[in-house]
């Protein structure tokens, strides 16, 4: 298990591997008579998975000066994945809020003799392709967290740019963020077998 190194300073643009807090995922917008109902899920922490050079090129459009003449490299949205708290994740309760109430897989951590189970070892050693286990070197920045590659969504880039400094938590260092996106793309491109 490698510990994830982070940086607590943000650059002047969105970056791959950035961790942000309280990000909304809009489920639906429904109009009933004169009322509009916006249904959303608020994720406490998300990590940016979009390619970093795409983000770098797109950042040019949000500069004060020297903006590009066309919008060819401008992005509509960026991909993010929720970070689930390990403690809740192991109990299968990370989506068990009264408003969502998903029943998720339970992971047993210890077996008889105070040894770790193979299921848990595979999780923390990142041998289970569906999940990415993140143990942060600096425990005061983030508690151990898990990415479930089945869960990801897009966030509007202008929106995230506008509240970036307010919601920024930390930046996962390049080597580690590449490892995350490599495993994410591998999981996404797997052949669906019955």
């Amino acid at each position: 298990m490698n510990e994830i190194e982070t940086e607590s300073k943000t650059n002047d643009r969105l970056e791959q591997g950035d961790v942000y807090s309280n990000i909304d995922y809009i489920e639906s917008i429904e109009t009933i008579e004169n009322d509009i109902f916006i249904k959303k899920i608020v994720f406490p922490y998300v990590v940016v998975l979009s390619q970093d050079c795409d983000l770098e090129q797109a950042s040019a459009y949000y500069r004060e000066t020297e903006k590009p003449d066309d919008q060819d490299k401008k992005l509509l949205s960026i991909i993010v994945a929720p970070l689930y708290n390990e403690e809740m994740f192991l109990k299968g309760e990370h989506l068990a809020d009264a408003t969502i109430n998903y029943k998720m897989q339970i992971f047993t951590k210890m077996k008889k003799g105070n040894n770790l189970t193979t299921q848990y070892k595979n999780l923390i050693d990142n041998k289970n392709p569906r999940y990415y286990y993140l143990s942060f070197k600096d425990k005061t920045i983030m508690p151990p967290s898990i990415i479930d590659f089945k869960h990801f969504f897009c966030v509007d880039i202008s929106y995230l740019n506008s509240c970036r400094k307010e919601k920024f938590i930390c930046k996962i260092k390049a080597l580690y963020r590449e490892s995350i996106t490599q495993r994410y793309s591998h999981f996404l491109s797997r052949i669906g077998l019955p």
Partner: protein
Amino acid sequence: MPKSVIPDYSEGIPSSTAATQSGVPIKTEAMPPEIIPADELVPQKLGDSEETKTEVNIYKINRPYRDIIKAIKKNE
């Protein structure tokens, strides 16, 4: 003088202790960090930064939740 604590080795000597006693370093696998129960967690204050949020309540264990916002449609 503090009371000495006698370790209980009834279930075998942990590998790290065995390494210390024999003087031969044994490479042990790093154990996962201890999970702190949610109700024992306290808010942590991070250092001030000009560019980032000055205070982050990182250990506020919260999970995703669904929210519904109601707005009134304006007919023009």
